[in-house]
């Protein structure tokens, strides 16, 4: 059996998205900037995609900008807002400890430029406290950027509450919603979101395409100078097939969200229940406020990369935040941010599901996982130590 359980890394493109894209290669191949009818067809395709996406997040289509993906949108929004506000003497940014590197590394770069960064705690359950945001806001705060849902442990942040605080205090608010868009209901207006990043390939759209919602009135500096695309702010001929595919994928995801969520939560809980039967295992992050398809677990005495590769040999694709998979020799900053010690973070496994997965596949994972863990523990000197300490 083949089980793809790494949908937080990327997803398979949906049939609807693929179908919508094909004509963009074959017949709607014009340049949206051209005035002839071939170009106008492409122009309409891009316009319609923008409207579709805006509807899915309750935004004005004028406020939706296309980009190459989540990383670009994060960079654009954060650097742009920082530089915009620096002109008013505001050089303080609030974020959280467990943001994606697209955010954290951007903040590092800004720190080197002289911005002051406050990274909020996310506590044991992996959730930012809105009152911490409130207390951290100062006269010179330029921006608050807090992710909508965490990519590793799946915890959903109180974005509506944080948005309300920022709006009340008059501080710009950006959210990296790459893991949330298409997975949970999002309303940028109700949540008081000023800027929001999203990425097509996380909801069964194509890779290398994403977007930024940027509320009217926020004049972000241009990202790419050139033609008039994206209202002059990001020049370059649009990736029409990808834009159209992303919109179709998002519409499909939002149309079926309720049904998909039910199915996903049932599978997620099936996995969690089975995993918790394994000795010295734990589930990371809040049990309730989490993405419907996210299971993040740790198994003591086991190293994550080995676990992941043995699962792969059984046809199961998953991921791990272990030090050995990171290339940097440090376990994932997300797992450390919720207070896990290195040894425990080292044995992490993330299974991220989508609606194409089945309960039978969950059974298969739960059948294959325990013997692999036993096998790794049998050859683990760390497990030997843990066992000795337990019998003491």
């Amino acid at each position, binding site marked *: 059996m083949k089980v793809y359980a790494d949908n937080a890394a990327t997803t398979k493109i949906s049939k609807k998205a693929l179908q919508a894209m094909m004509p963009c290669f074959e017949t709607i191949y014009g340049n949206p900037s051209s005035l002839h009818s071939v170009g106008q067809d492409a122009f309409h395709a891009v316009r319609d995609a923008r409207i579709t996406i805006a509807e899915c997040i309750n935004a004005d289509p004028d406020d939706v900008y296309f980009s190459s993906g989540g990383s670009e949108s994060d960079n654009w929004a954060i650097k742009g807002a920082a530089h915009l506000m620096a002109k008013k003497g505001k050089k303080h940014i609030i974020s959280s400890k467990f943001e994606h590197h697209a955010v954290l590394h951007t903040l590092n770069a800004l720190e080197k430029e002289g911005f002051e960064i406050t990274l909020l705690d996310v506590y044991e359950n992996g959730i930012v406290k809105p009152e911490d945001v409130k207390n951290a806001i100062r006269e010179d705060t330029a921006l608050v950027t807090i992710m909508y849902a965490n990519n590793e442990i799946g915890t959903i942040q109180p974005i509506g509450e944080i948005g309300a605080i920022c709006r009340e205090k008059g501080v710009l608010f950006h959210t990296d919603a790459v893991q949330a868009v298409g997975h949970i209901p999002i309303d940028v207006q109700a949540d008081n979101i000023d800027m929001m990043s999203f990425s097509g390939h996380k909801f069964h759209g194509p890779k290398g395409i994403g977007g930024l919602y940027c509320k009217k009135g926020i004049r972000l500096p241009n990202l790419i100078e050139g033609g008039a695309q994206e209202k002059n702010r990001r020049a370059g001929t649009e990736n029409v097939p990808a834009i159209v595919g992303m919109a179709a994928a998002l519409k499909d995801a939002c149309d079926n969200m309720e049904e998909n969520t039910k199915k996903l939560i049932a599978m997620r809980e099936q996995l969690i229940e089975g995993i918790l039967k394994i000795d010295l295992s734990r589930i990371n992050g809040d049990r309730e406020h989490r993405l419907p398809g996210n299971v993040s677990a740790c198994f003591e005495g*086991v190293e994550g990369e*080995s676990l992941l590769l043995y699962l792969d040999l059984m046809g199961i694709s998953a991921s791990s935040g272990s030090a*050995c998979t990171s290339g940097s020799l440090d376990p994932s900053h997300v797992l450390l941010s919720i207070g896990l010690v290195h040894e425990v973070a080292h044995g992490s496994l993330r299974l991220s599901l989508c609606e194409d997965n089945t309960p039978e596949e969950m059974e298969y994972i739960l059948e294959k996982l325990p013997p692999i863990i036993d096998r790794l523990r049998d050859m683990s*000197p760390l497990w030997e130590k843990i066992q000795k300490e337990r019998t003491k």
Partner: protein
Amino acid sequence: MEYSEKVMEHFTNPHNVGKLDDADGVGEVGNAKCGDIMKMYLKIENGIITDVKFNTYGCASAIATSSIATDMIKGQPISEALKLTNKAVVEALDGLPAVKIHCSVLAEQAIKAAVKDYYDKNGIEYDEAEFHFNEEHHH
């Protein structure tokens, strides 16, 4: 990052996994940074390593290096085993990704630590310098 077929072969079916209850020398080394641990058990007769087993907590390359390094020293005189370098281990595995080279150092060190334990237990004199390794030197 990509592993060679040889690495995957040894990772999938590692040789010499286990413990030796009657080991003559046991060595345990750890990589303080990524937290991995390798434990080596040696059975030694007349200066020859007649049996060897290992336990490893670490990534696929740590397991594969343990497997191939134990193969390489089994049946060898101690003097030969001490000459085993991590470079030779990496070559025998048809290479390791750059970020994984440090894993191969563990195998070399675990063997040395086990031989040192054997020397210590049996009052055999040795040159301290040969066993002086800094666990952090590869970082």
